[in-house]
């Protein structure tokens, strides 16, 4: 592969030194866009994503694996899927997840009494989602954190996190005996040695 070198002159011409032509060129572009977007029906060829305007869904513009604001998934009965195993709060490099566990008094046994995420501290790394053994926490809301007026508004509790959530299709507690049919093929490094 050859490397080509292009020599660029840094000498300013008289036209550059006056500045006015360049300014006028810029204003012309702005004016062209202004008139086109204002008077053409259907907003013309506008390239800006307009947050908050009706009919515009920001989520359409984000890739599928975009990591946005956290949400907590639900069980079939609508209760929280999380079992307060603290894997996410342990792995969190920003230490922005605070969980307190309680007894659920049913077969699921354990649930979070409080589940708090400080979105201001969050570094959006997605480790919490990776660590979760229950598909309880997700970052697939495609909603990024919007600045708030107070810090307290950026601290999300269980109710706010669950309001973004929905029922997960994953089977609570794993697939059980039928995992062979349903699970993807296991990593050959961990399969049992043939005898």
């Amino acid at each position: 592969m050859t490397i080509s070198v292009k020599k660029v002159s840094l000498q300013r011409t008289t036209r550059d030194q006056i500045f006015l032509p360049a300014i006028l060129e810029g204003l012309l572009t702005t004016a062209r866009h202004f008139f086109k977007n204002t008077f053409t029906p259907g907003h013309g060829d506008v390239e800006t994503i307009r947050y908050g305007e009706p009919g515009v869904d920001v989520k359409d513009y984000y890739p599928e694996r975009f990591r946005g604001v956290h949400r907590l998934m639900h069980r079939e009965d609508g209760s929280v899927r999380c079992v307060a195993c603290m894997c996410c709060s342990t792995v969190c490099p920003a230490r922005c997840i605070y969980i307190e566990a309680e007894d659920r008094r049913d077969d699921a046994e354990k649930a979070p009494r409080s589940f708090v995420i400080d979105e201001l501290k969050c570094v959006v790394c997605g480790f919490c989602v990776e660590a979760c053994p229950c598909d309880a926490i997700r970052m697939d809301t495609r909603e990024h954190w919007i600045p708030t007026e107070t810090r307290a508004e950026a601290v999300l509790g269980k109710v706010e996190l669950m309001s973004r959530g929905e029922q997960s299709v994953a089977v609570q507690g794993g697939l059980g005996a039928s995992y062979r049919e349903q699970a993807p093929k296991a990593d050959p490094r961990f399969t049992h040695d043939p005898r």
Partner: protein
Amino acid sequence: MSNHDSRSTSSTIPPTPGTLPPPSVAPAPRVGMDPRPHAPEGWAPPVAPNRPAEPTEGQETVTLTIDGKEVTVAKGTNVLEASGLLGEEVCHFCYHQGLSIAASCRQCLVEIEKMGKLQPSCQVPVAEGMVVHTSSPTVLKARREMLEFTLKNHPIDCPICDKAGECTLQRHYMAHDHQLTRVDVPKIRKPKHKDIGREIVLDAERCILCSRCVRFCEEIPGTAELTMSWRGDHEQIDIADGHRLDNAYSINTVDICPVGALTAKDFRFAIRAWELHATPTTCNGCATGCAVELHTKHEQAYRVVPRFDPAVNGHWMCDEGRYTYKELDPQARVHRAEVDGATVPLADAIATVATRLTKARKLAVVFSSSATNEANDALRELAEVLATSVKGREGITATRYVLGHPRGEGDAILRDADKNPNTNGAHDAAAGSAGDVDKHEAELALELAGRAYDAVLFLDDSGELSEVALAGLANITSVCLASRRTPLSSACSIVLPAASWAEILGTYTNRQGLLRVVQPAWRPEHDRKHRADLLRDLMLAMGLRNVATAKERTRLLADEHEHAELQALVTDPKAMRPTLLRWANMRG
């Protein structure tokens, strides 16, 4: 009635008459009450029935070869202990140094030459010239397949299991097995979260049937509440009909459970084990002074677990002692000095106390049997200082009392009826020179209520005084070195913030006369200080020089008792750093 009840009543030993010399000035003692605690006659620490491999002097030894290395061990020990001496612990579930041998888990199988089959190393006594292979391919294969059987019906509900992070099954799985399950039939379901006792919850599914808990209940408290029921795949741990696992040592079963089958109600879902820091310290629940670990996070204590000490408690501790951490409740802590209800800087409070104490005409100092030796010694020094006349001030002899928690229940295993960790040390300090020693607390209460004193100094916040006495304290100069809000510390007119036993390096003298060490789990917050250092500040404020600090007193005690561990702690503060349990996954 249950076996447990009959035993607990018969085994409660009445306080024995003292073998130690009585206090120098002996007041009329309470009837049947000896202030100084002693171990019951013929008592011995509940140490391991299994002989440790390390040979002691004069013991017969046996030499054998383990994995090509020759090792000389004590005669009578087993192969598992012997290989442990080489630093290669054979993985096991059912074997426990402090219990009889069941050899039921078959996890510790090893290959021994000239023996046809693989042998459970916990059950085979060492013999001269034995050649053992602990990690040959056959052994590793057997170990791995045993683990597969063990995991067959295990629910693998680690996310909701309290043992996760300190679980022996997890550890061995990661070390040996590490494979996906090959079982495609439904697992056998057993009772989950079953309430089996005052302190314990049973999850029969998680149980791997090692029978450690069954053997513990038979051998240590001798109550035998637990048993195995059903057979084969359906075998499970259970309690007999009408019985509950309610003995005084029941939470030990949680510690020795290699999985999360038995969990403690108190610790249930409180915190994950890997978040905790462990500090080796001493239980301050009674005069026995068991070696314990205090598990903490962010200046808050979560549980107390026993630490092996062959001289005092073996592997065990009582349930009562596990609740001593409740005293460290962050809500009740005293952080700042208070004079007549107003929060003041510590230096100002000390100056006020110095002025008022020197002006007092009738003074009482109250030693505490729940404070450390260092604090009691500093109070003795202060009383001596006050008793000497200096220019411009006549010395006053302070009346000395010893106050502590009221007596409770004791037994012949570990619990002592004296619920104070340092009764011996407090009495030694209080008897150092002339003065009334060990008056009945009620007598003190009456005298205080009757305004017998115009100044009282309490070394600690524990101790129960009557309401009349507490009311009397408000009108006189009453100083309390308090680490938490108690009726006593709230009644006193001056409160100095003292560090609790979880924040200081100090010593207790237990009922055997042994020096027991408490270590700091975290630094004292705000104005809180070691009691000996508070009293030192007070003596400095009185114009004294060269008063020993708490650390210097500890150093003196360590040298006096030739306590190597304590000497190391005093010289190297880094030795006191708590261990994060995440990196010490060796419990259970």
